């Protein structure tokens, strides 16, 4: 596999999704999705529940197989990589999942240290120091020996973030950072994400449906609805977009659905 560390210096778009189509069974979830993420930017993928944003994220992480289309990460099409090559590629990626996905049988420190023990030959002392550094970054110094069950929701997200940046990845993915958090903790987490971008120069992709959070941290926003991209642009572009579905999302307005009495009756009386 070519060395991605030298490659991505020349790449403007570190993530490129081209004509992505995906199905769950017979149902098409993403319809011909195209996104480019520039190096060093915070790209927020926004949309309502069931819009396909988490599915898109999971495709970018190589966790789902696309029906068609390409996903270029640091210049390489990950849909064409072998399993081994994909594991190599993922060393350049950090992921913080919505629920944290911390290993419940491991302490906070052990969770954060896991990638270092698996992928490096650093000695225990260095790993310990690196762990403490990352915990300092997420304001959790001194919490090394706690178990995940002893942490609050916000703390779990911050530990997950510390784990995702322990290998100093080039790309950071964050699924619903603010979900389930109070506004203060949510704002703290947003600040933290911006600090990470500025201090470490990471390219960050965030999936969220929290409008305030998205407008605060995004360099650019992609709005997804029913598996289709409605707009990709700056915060102002999105706010000024005249697409009705985008405005409905921004103004928290429920969809107006025309009820077809015939179809409604058929739905109620169909067999099976």
């Amino acid at each position, binding site marked *: 596999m070519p060395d991605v560390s030298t490659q991505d210096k020349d790449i403007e778009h570190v993530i490129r999704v081209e004509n992505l189509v995906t199905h769950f069974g017979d149902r098409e979830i993403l319809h011909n999705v195209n996104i480019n993420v520039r190096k060093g930017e915070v790209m927020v993928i926004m949309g309502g529940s069931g819009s396909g944003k988490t599915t898109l994220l*999971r495709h970018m*992480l*190589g*966790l789902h197989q696309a029906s068609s289309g390409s996903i270029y990460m640091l210049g390489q099409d990950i849909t064409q990589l072998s399993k081994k090559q994909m*594991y*190599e*590629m*993922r*060393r350049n*990626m950090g*992921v913080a*999942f*919505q*629920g944290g*996905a*911390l*290993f*419940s049988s491991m302490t906070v420190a052990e969770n954060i240290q*896991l*990638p270092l023990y*698996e*992928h490096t030959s650093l000695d225990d002392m260095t790993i310990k120091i690196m762990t403490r550094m990352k915990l300092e970054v997420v304001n959790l110094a001194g919490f090394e020996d706690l178990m995940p069950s002893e942490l609050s929701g916000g703390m779990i997200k911050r530990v997950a973030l510390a*784990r995702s940046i322990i290998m100093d990845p080039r790309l950071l*993915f964050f699924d619903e950072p603010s979900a389930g958090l109070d506004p203060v903790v949510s704002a703290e987490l947003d600040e933290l994400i911006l600090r990470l971008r500025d201090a470490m120069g990471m390219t960050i992709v965030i999936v969220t449906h929290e409008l305030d959070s998205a407008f605060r941290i995004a360099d650019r926003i992609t709005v997804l609805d029913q598996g289709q991209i409605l707009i990709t642009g700056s915060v102002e572009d999105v706010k000024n977009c005249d697409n009705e579905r985008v405005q409905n999302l921004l103004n928290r307005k429920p969809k107006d659905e025309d009820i077809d009495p015939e179809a409604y009756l058929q739905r109620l009386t169909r067999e099976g």
Partner: protein
Amino acid sequence: MLLATPIRLIEKIGFESIYITRLTGSMIIFLVHCLGNIFILPIRFTAVLRQIYFIGARSLLVIIVTGMFTGMVLALLAYYNLKQYGNMELIGAATALGLIQELGPVLAALMVIGRAGSAMTAELGIMRNSEQIDALECMGIDPYRFLITPKFIATIFSLPLLTCVFDVVGICGGYLVAVINNDVPSGAFIQGMITNVDWADLRLGLVKPLTFSVIIVWICSYKGFYVHQNRSGVFGAEGVSLVTTNAVVMSSVSVLALDYVVGLIML
């Protein structure tokens, strides 16, 4: 209307065939992947030791208790049946052969399924549901190698040993019932055992737990690892409970079926 039922039947057969073919293929790929990882160095010794402690050491008490009562029942049955023919010296042989060839491997395997196999399925299922397995993938860590291979190595190592413990404790239980409770001469019990149990019996008694261990980890790990693909489409806590029950039933039935096949080949 008349044609609807046969067409539905054909459809059902078709769906079932596709499902079984997919499941078989997927399970075989899973097994090959996991077994292949056993031979890739370095082996994760700490993880293997932790699993040996969980699967082996922590099953010891239940194995000792079950083994003791099984041996006692075997000796009791042998005593009452052989008494009619005056063949009391065969009590030792009957108890030992019953345990070594059949009951030791099967009952030890069933105990391990109930205690450790179900825990394996539930643990992996919960890890899948809470995205911990995805997190491993995203960290560039092979979840098969990290989570399942240590379970395979530990079970392949632990189950034959647990079976040996079961056999020994069972024979001791049989000895207590025959010699102490029913006045069978101690020499007759031991001599009958020495005369009638040979290496072929011991070999059979060790090959069985080895094959059972692979089957148990294979089914229990697969069910938990792929909880999100379970056929009923039930997820979350109910999904985990469903696949755990499935794993226990499927691996128990497989152990009994395999017991017959191995016996048929080796006897």
